[in-house]
């Protein structure tokens, strides 16, 4: 990156470290933090939407819909999330290819699952074998995002379902007494009021989501853990920057990153919680009122 780094064998000390930390691979490492943040930025709203849909379905009076919703919310209960991660990544991939296969090659006669193979016609491959490497990477990342959103959507559905039940019944009855329809009560009364009850659960969920991001590594994405292992491993003198096994330091750096991130999130979420409690008929709202008076 810098001109002085042209011959790394000849420099020492701090300038060596500076050159070492700005190699192309290290820049990839720094970019992988952006990957993690991107994952969080996309997953959080999508999972919230999934959760909202799941909670609404679970509340439905239409039996099949409510069964689907309840099944979805119950999904993460009792089974480790890592099992879902490993499962969904392959299952989604195969499901998409299978569907594509039905559309693209209707007269393909060979069975798709033959022995130990899963073989669809070449046109139905997602992404196509001829696609550039970047497309394959993007597809892998997209699969990981959908997987995260599905699993965390189920968590969020749990939280939101509970929050909807926690809104005082009297509030809804008052709205009904004013002649609002079910839909109006839901939109104007229930949803605005449920957030304060949902917030503790959702902030917990956000923390868990942050702490689940290193699992991207297991889904085959080149994330922070991948690069920490790659860069930290011992490098012989055949490399430009030889060094012994430094993985410990790289992982220590990741640990500090995550600690700082969760601490910051906690601070922000506490503020949001105080903001939402304003004027609410809860203990926290009462405490705020007294403090202000």
């Amino acid at each position, binding site marked *: 990156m810098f001109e002085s780094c042209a011959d790394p064998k000849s420099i020492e000390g701090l300038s060596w470290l500076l050159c070492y930390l700005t190699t192309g691979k290290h820049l990839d490492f720094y970019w992988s933090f952006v990957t993690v943040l991107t994952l969080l930025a996309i997953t959080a709203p999508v999972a919230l939407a999934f959760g909202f849909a799941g909670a609404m379905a679970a509340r439905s009076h239409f039996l099949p819909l409510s069964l689907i919703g309840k099944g979805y919310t119950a999904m993460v209960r009792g089974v480790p999330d890592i*099992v879902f991660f490993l499962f969904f990544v392959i299952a989604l991939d195969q499901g998409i290819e299978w569907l594509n296969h039905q559309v693209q090659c209707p007269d393909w006669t060979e069975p798709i699952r033959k022995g*130990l193979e899963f073989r669809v016609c070449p046109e139905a491959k997602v992404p196509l074998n001829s696609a550039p490497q970047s497309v394959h990477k993007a597809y892998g990342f997209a699969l990981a995002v959908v997987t995260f959103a599905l699993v965390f959507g189920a968590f969020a559905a749990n939280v939101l379902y509970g929050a909807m039940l926690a809104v005082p019944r009297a509030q809804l009855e008052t709205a009904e007494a004013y002649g609002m329809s079910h839909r109006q009560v839901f939109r104007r009364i229930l949803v605005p009021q449920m957030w304060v009850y949902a917030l503790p659960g959702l902030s917990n969920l956000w923390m868990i989501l942050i702490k689940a991001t290193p699992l991207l*590594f297991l889904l085959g994405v080149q994330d922070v853990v991948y690069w*920490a292992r790659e860069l930290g491993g011992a490098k012989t003198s055949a490399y430009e920057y030889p060094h012994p*096994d430094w993985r410990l330091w790289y992982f220590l750096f990741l640990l500090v990153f995550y*600690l700082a991130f969760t601490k910051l999130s906690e601070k922000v979420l506490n503020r949001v919680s105080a903001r939402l409690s304003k004027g609410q008929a809860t203990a926290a709202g009462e405490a705020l009122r007294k403090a202000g008076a």
Partner: protein
Amino acid sequence: MTTCWETINAYALRSLGYGERLLPRSDFTLCQQFTLIGSGMLWNIYFGVLALLAGFFLANALALAKAAHSPWLRKPAEWFIFVFRGSPLFIQFFLAYEALQMLPKAGIDVFGITVQTAWTTKAWAGALFVLFLNTAAYSAEIFHGALRSIPKGDLEAADAYGITGWSRFIRIEWPTMLRLAWPAYTNEAIFLFHSTALVFFSGFPAFQQRGDALYYANYFADKTFNPFIPYPIVACYFILLTLVVIWLFGRVNRHLNRHLPSNMGSKIRLRPQLIR
């Protein structure tokens, strides 16, 4: 073609190193998958039970330290809890593995006795240690919260009876803390068992392919390209394990609440929060 009974004989204790050495390589049967994955569950149970038992004691100590007035006790406990609750378990596993590998291979000399270090990088010891510290931190936070929500009246009553010091703690505070914390602690236990599935995906190698349930499920999914059989099998096993945990903790909960009128006991709800 071997019968299912033969498969069970060959693989039921495979995860511990007994029985058939070679894992099946082709013609995977449902029986093989059930047996091997079930065999792997032994490791999940081992990690979960031991970490939970040992973690319980450390958690109590940490919760008390965090509630202490002296900053010499409080600060270290707060930092310990912050570090383990604020960072991903996955990273903790990696970090611990790398740190344990830095120990001198030949062993450490303590007063002329050589202490072996090689065993610490094995999953049965290293991963167990990380899980133990991790669950202790989470449980300590739960216990600390419970300690702070002991009803004021209980403590005043103890004062009025002249119960002070150690006997106040052991007869009034600790049982009440445990009673209040139990539902949340049940969740923590469930979560801990779930976390054990991470062990063999996080640096700790599975020696001679002796892994946990998810390790074998992943093996089958890789070999057969079919995730729809092994993963649901793991899920079944874990649901069973979770039910057993809920049942056991429910028994303890009933014992802790036995002095209360039956409608007042804080029942463990059948819908445990799944979030820790």
